């Protein structure tokens, strides 16, 4: 896209600028208003992305040398895989500001600074085309998220915030090793250049494992998911919304952007494991969600299950699966984000997240229940909502790949219906022990404002998904085509010297990437 206007840079750093400008404002009300205005400006700044053409390859690309001595470039760009995630991050910001309007009562300015910084990091992660730049944003995100849970969280915020930080940081330590190894073996940090290269199977094997640890914890996949319920339950609602809508997507985005193109052969050999873990996530997440009494915990475990569908879709390596996975990433962001906002709204009224304390809301808060019902239906993939499209595509791909996988996934879809309907039934028609709900006000204007947007998207994407799918399609087809060709190619070549090494780089020596395995074992 030949444009001189650096739309991605502006999108990335405008929130940072806004956060700095917030510093002199004293009144809490003004801080909220200023952040809301900034977030709406951010949405307007994203409008040039409408020029996105539905074709493969990176668009809106910007490349500026960063630290040339070490081959770092400041490179941004989006393709069909990342553009939706960038839009989702940008769109989430105003909703988060609105849903914290009354929820956050203390240290208001710091809270909004954290929100803005998180948006910077999120947009940065999804648009970075340099591995180090990606890692910078990836890790920088942890700091505001940690503060958000640790300062504005619930009673166990210390435990939850430290667990969140330790888990995600531990996962990404080996990501840094992988980045360094890729730099030495591939000669560059620039992602499109790395994607064009082929690495030996042994090298791919270890890189895949290092990436897997980082991404699987972020997603989170089944055995690594325990930080998620703790973080979700303790985080303030805006924190939960960003966590669910954007942060979890970074893991699956990582699989799509890095694992598949850089380690195609290893991806294939690990695919059975990935599929097994995905199915375990779907079934385990669903089953545990069924047993929860805390609404937020229930939705948190449902996230584990939903993200299981995404990873399953990715590792089926078929167009349907990957398209469905990306679509499901967007859906989950919209639906689960909205449900966390709803939980925040009801918590402000009942001061409890227990299902038991929120019974009979159909009588007290009918409009609230309307939205809850809609998002609930979308969450378990009711036809006509966007959840249906994504889930259906993944299940279709699963059956195409193997009937066994398909049959294993079906109970997951059933479980989703079961836990959502169970909680919805009790919230709508349960008999509350005390008629405390009489005094509650139904949705306010601001709450309508932040719920209507995701509701409209749920219905629109459910009825007319083709527009978006055509945006994703070319990039997915290209990724899969390259993936397939490399799979065949790499299995025959024995890699001695990776080609395409630009001049002026430091490492002249050829490295046998096979040395990696021996040394990792030695450790």
């Amino acid at each position, binding site marked *: 896209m030949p444009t001189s206007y650096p739309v991605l840079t502006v999108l990335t750093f405008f929130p940072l600028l806004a956060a700095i400008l917030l510093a002199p404002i004293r009144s809490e009300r003004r801080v909220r208003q200023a952040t809301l205005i900034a977030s709406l400006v951010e949405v307007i700044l994203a409008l040039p992305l409408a020029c996105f053409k539905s074709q493969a390859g990176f668009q809106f690309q910007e490349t500026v040398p960063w630290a040339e*001595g070490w081959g770092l470039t400041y490179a941004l760009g989006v393709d069909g895989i990342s553009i939706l995630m960038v839009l989702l991050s940008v769109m989430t910001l105003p909703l988060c500001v609105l849903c914290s309007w009354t929820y956050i009562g203390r240290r208001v300015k710091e809270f909004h600074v954290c929100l803005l910084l998180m948006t910077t990091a999120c947009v940065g992660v999804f648009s970075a085309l340099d591995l180090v730049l990606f890692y910078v944003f990836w*890790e920088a995100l942890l*700091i505001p998220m*940690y503060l958000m849970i640790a300062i504005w969280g619930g009673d166990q915020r210390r435990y939850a*915030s*430290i667990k969140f930080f*330790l888990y995600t940081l531990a996962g990404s*330590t*080996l990501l*840094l090793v992988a980045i360094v190894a890729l730099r030495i073996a591939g000669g560059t940090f620039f992602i499109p250049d790395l994607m064009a290269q082929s690495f030996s199977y042994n090298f791919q094997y270890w890189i895949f494992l290092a990436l897997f640890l980082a991404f699987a914890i972020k997603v989170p996949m089944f055995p690594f998911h325990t930080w998620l319920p703790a973080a979700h339950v303790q985080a303030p609602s805006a924190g939960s919304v960003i966590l669910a809508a954007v942060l979890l997507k970074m893991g699956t985005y990582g699989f799509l952007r890095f694992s598949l193109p850089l380690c195609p052969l290893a991806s294939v050999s690990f695919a059975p494991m990935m599929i097994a873990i995905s199915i375990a996530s779907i079934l385990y997440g669903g089953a545990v969600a069924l047993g929860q009494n805390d609404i937020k915990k229930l939705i948190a475990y449902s996230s584990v299950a939903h993200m299981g569908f995404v990873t399953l879709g990715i590792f089926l390596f078929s167009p349907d699966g990957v398209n469905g996975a990306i679509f499901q990433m967007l859906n989950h962001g919209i639906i689960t984000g909205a449900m966390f906002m709803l939980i925040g709204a009801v918590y402000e009224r009942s001061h409890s997240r227990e299902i038991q304390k929120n019974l009979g809301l159909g009588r007290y808060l009918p409009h609230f229940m309307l939205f809850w019902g809609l998002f609930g239906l979308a969450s378990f993939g009711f036809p006509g909502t966007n959840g249906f499209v994504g889930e259906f595509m993944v299940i279709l791909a699963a059956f195409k790949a193997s009937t066994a996988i398909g049959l294993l996934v079906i109970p997951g879809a059933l479980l989703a219906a079961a836990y959502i309907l169970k909680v919805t039934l009790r919230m709508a028609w349960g008999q509350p022990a005390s008629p405390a709900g009489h005094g509650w006000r139904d949705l306010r204007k601001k709450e309508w404002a932040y719920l209507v947007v995701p509701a409209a998207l749920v219905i629109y994407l459910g009825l007319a998904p083709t527009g978006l799918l055509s945006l994703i399609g070319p990039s997915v087809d290209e990724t899969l085509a390259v993936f397939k060709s490399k799979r065949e190619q790499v299995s025959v070549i024995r890699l001695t010297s990776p080609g395409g090494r630009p001049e002026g780089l430091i490492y002249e020596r050829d490295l046998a990437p096979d040395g990696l395995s021996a040394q990792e074992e030695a450790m």
Partner: protein
Amino acid sequence: MPGLDLNLNLGLLAPEIIFLGLVILLFAASMANCQGRLVAWLCPLAALASALLAACGLGTESTQFFGVYRLDGLSQFFKILIALGYLVAWLNALSQKTVEGDQKPDYRLFLTLSAFGLILLSSASELVAIYLAMELASYSLYVLIPKRSRSREAAEAGLKYILFGAAATALALYGLALIIASQHVTIIAALTGLDWSLQSNPLAVVGLSLFLGGMFFKLALFPFHFWCPDVYQGAGNETAAYVATLPKLGAIIVLIRLASLLAPGLALTDILAFLAAASITYGNLCALAQRDLKRMLGFSSVAHAGYILVGLVSGTPEGLAASAFYAMAYVLMNLLCFWVICRVSADGRNLSYSDLNGLSARSPLLALSLLAAAFSLVGLPPTVGFIGKLWLITSAWGHGYDWLVIVVCVNTAIAIFYYLSLVRHAYTEEDIPAGGAQALALDKGLLSQAGALLLGLLVVLLGLLPGPVWNVVLGASQALLD
């Protein structure tokens, strides 16, 4: 041998001359027990002037004093760091609460003398000169550390430092003797071309190991680190801030100069790599268990000593440059951390984690700076600590020490817990224990805020735009290895 004549160029020696003049002046002031402000305020001016003059000499490369004294990019880079670090140490000593008034001239004298020794050390390129400069810097510290009025811990710390230091010095001297006996030269440039393999020249390798041991002691590398946490804890906050930063620089520059003798695969290099890994892991694990902030920082510096060694094992210019860059990052983050500690500890007492409670409400800027320092010490982006660590591990990967890189990265996950505690107490803990340091007002003066802001900005900005500094150190290391 190039440069085997006096070859004196006073212009290039200006930083040294300024510091020498300052030392003499302070000596006179100390003798006369003059507590005049004029003499005191000469110190920062002299420091700034030497930093500027050292910066002017960044491009030069010459040897003076019969090849003993080498002026190159690396030495000038470290001189700038030392002069600026001295400036910060002096600012810290301004508001010193634990040194009595009539001792302040002495304190300044020995502080300056130590910095002078380090400045000499950064240019010394001959083993005996290195030894002399190092001792000049250390002897001053032996006096500085116990200067904390009526504190038994400070006396204990001073004694420990002297005893350990004397033993380490003796070892280093013995090593020096062995090197002279086996290689017959002491100028590093001449030593580079000689044989350093254990099989053919065991005496030299043993000698160099012992000599390096002396440096490791100054650097507080495992297993030469025993003094470090005790000294940090016992010394006054301002003294600890100095001991933790600049003398380490001195050891690092000597190691960088000696690293031209090392190559991957040598027995000595393997030992270095092993010590680095052990130091990182041991330092981080011990730091986990600490309550006292300075003690924690002591163990953290044991770990950081290990990180700095990672750059030396590859024996490439990039590795040496990465070590030099990380040394700068280390000094910056520690100065920032200690800056906050010195301001928060209003009466000069030792702080524990809980004394930081509620810092974000009491002084947002100090809390933010502490957050930047803590995340930089962990090595999280976007800080100078991250970029430094990235370069260290990139330079070490692919030279047979990949396992070391993995150890470094995995240790991040251990280290995060105790650094995060700093942030956690400053930002999330609000209940203030009775009788803690909070009972006293912290220093919120203009100087305190400005210093924190400046150091904090440096930590972040050098993390985002490391290019210019990197080019300087890379050029310097390439010149060193040519």
